[in-house]
């Protein structure tokens, strides 16, 4: 409206000619403002990047080289935090606990997910109901309420021991209070939440054309051969996707371990998950520098594992033609 420089005299504004000129002007204006438009839409996201996600990653990189307890200014101490980390037995313990948890529970979870997805993919009646029932635990598996339930079920006076005593076991272990079994109860909890990868598998199985199976069975391939030679290769991108996702998720397990162990990671540090240890250092001891070093190491692990998964995928994931 205000760009009057190239607008013709007023008298002509109702004539036939000006239409083209003013349209060109407005197009130019739109182009100018159009350059800004995407950034207006993205403004919140950029702010989030700066303050909530990417910015803090950089900040924690800096903090990992300092000694900082929220009071006073961070004090630069070079690599001391990392040196401390590699001399810290609880750091190694937390790594060990988390790795065992990931390596045992994720494959089990995916195996259950694939197995049930295969059964459900046969066009059974009640598919939607089964799918919902199996999916439900995934939604609530990370909640405090379920972690509390687990603590009771696997407690020394819990549901499981009630059943075991009923069938005649005299002295069943205390599961969550026994260092040999506590981590196992959390692995079971994670396997219990196989519904989310199952739904993804199910959607993937739907996309495999039935003609492949027909061709395979014409060639005399049995069910097992069909599974190995048709289902697995065609489903491998989905298996890969689930593997990456569930590995990352499992690495971040916190609530379950926190509740079941009462925040200690016990008994005897047997459920000291990496994130739980990070929490204890950062928000129990307010050792923010050390916690940042731990956080950065976690980022390296998760990034590294994802990278390994992606590289390994080249050898076993089959992306069609």
């Amino acid at each position, binding site marked *: 409206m205000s760009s009057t420089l190239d607008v013709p005299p007023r008298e002509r504004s109702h004539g036939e000619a000006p239409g083209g000129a003013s349209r060109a002007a407005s197009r130019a204006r739109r182009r100018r403002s159009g350059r800004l438009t995407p950034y207006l839409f993205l403004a919140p*996201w950029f702010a989030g990047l700066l303050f909530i996600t990417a910015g803090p990653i950089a900040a924690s990189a800096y903090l990992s080289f300092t000694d900082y307890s929220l009071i006073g200014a961070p004090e630069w101490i070079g690599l001391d935090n990392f040196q401390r980390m590699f001399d810290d037995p609880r750091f190694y313990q937390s790594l060990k606990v988390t790795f065992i948890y990931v390596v045992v529970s994720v494959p089990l979870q995916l195996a259950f997910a694939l197995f049930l997805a295969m059964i459900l993919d046969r066009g059974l009646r009640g598919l939607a109901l089964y799918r919902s029932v199996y999916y439900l635990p995934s939604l609530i598996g990370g909640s405090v309420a379920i972690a509390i*339930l687990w603590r009771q079920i696997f407690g020394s006076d819990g549901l499981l021991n009630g059943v075991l005593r009923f069938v005649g076991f005299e002295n069943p272990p205390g599961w969550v209070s026994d260092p040999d079994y506590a981590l196992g109860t959390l692995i079971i909890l994670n396997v219990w939440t196989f519904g989310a990868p199952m739904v993804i598998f199910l959607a993937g199985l739907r*996309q495999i054309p039935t003609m492949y199976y027909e061709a395979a069975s014409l060639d005399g391939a049995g069910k097992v051969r069909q599974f190995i030679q048709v289902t697995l290769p065609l489903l491998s991108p989905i298996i890969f996707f689930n593997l990456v996702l569930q590995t990352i998720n499992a690495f971040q397990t*916190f609530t379950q371990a926190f*509740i079941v162990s009462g925040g200690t990671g016990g008994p005897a540090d047997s459920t000291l998950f990496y994130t739980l240890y990070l929490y204890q250092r950062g928000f129990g001891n307010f050792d923010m520098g050390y916690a*940042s070093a731990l956080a950065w190491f*976690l980022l390296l692990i998760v990034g590294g594992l994802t990278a390994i998964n992606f590289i390994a995928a080249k050898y076993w994931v089959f992306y069609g033609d």
Partner: protein
Amino acid sequence: MATDLTVAPPVAATEKLPDRKKKQRPRWLAHTVLILGALLMLYPLLWMLSSSFKFTEDIFSQTGLIPERVTTENYPEGWTALPRDFGHYIWNSLVIVVGSIIGNLLACSAAAYAFARLDFKFKKFWFAVMLGTMMLPIHVVIVPQYILFAELDWINTYWPLIVPKLLATDGFFIFLMVQFIRGIPLELDEAARIDGCGHFAIFWRIVIPLSVPALATTAIFTFIWTWNDFFSQLIFLTDPEMYTVPVALRTFVDATSQTPWGPVFAMSIVALAPVFGFFLAGQRYLVRGIATTGLK
């Protein structure tokens, strides 16, 4: 199924009949496996529900689903067991949940519109950054976030839990909506443009109304995740006045060595009930949400 006919002559189709019958028998087996599996999966939940109506001293000895002695005392007892009644914690949770839903709906859909429909410099790079943040564990950024929010004097307020959602930090939902918006025919945008709509009008009048399924998925997931979230609420809310449902629940098992299981289970059921409700009401969107983001 119909392709069978074009590939094979009718004779082959009749030959297939016994094969079909063979398939039918394991169907029995499949249903049996599925039902047993479902019962096993649900047993802990059903047992918790039934135990919330048992006397605490009965919970351990009764492993069955039907209480021998029924009591409803656990619910009022659990409701008032903590310094504030449980409704107070539900209110705190609700404020955060509603704020988060509004934040995610607005901020993520705006960002998704830019990624799906607009051109700007380094778009691919920024998109990759966005995907990268989806995999970023919150534990990596929690320390600097805490320091920032402490500087702002936001600890023990709702802000540290709502503001990140207003800043579109849940990449998962941006991605979900980018996928969805890409599926909306461009012709609609063009028609609107000819009618004189700018990008904001197209976004608000065309894209948003057509994206309702993706928005519903976002709202439901945001509800469930925020309602269940424990880690960030534990860190940012340390004042018992500000406790949310998960943080309050935790104090039940923390404070006393002798956990009053009856009331605890009752309040756990109260905490899970809204999730069940949303799940039942919105499972269509949930399943579709996982399937589309999972596959594309």
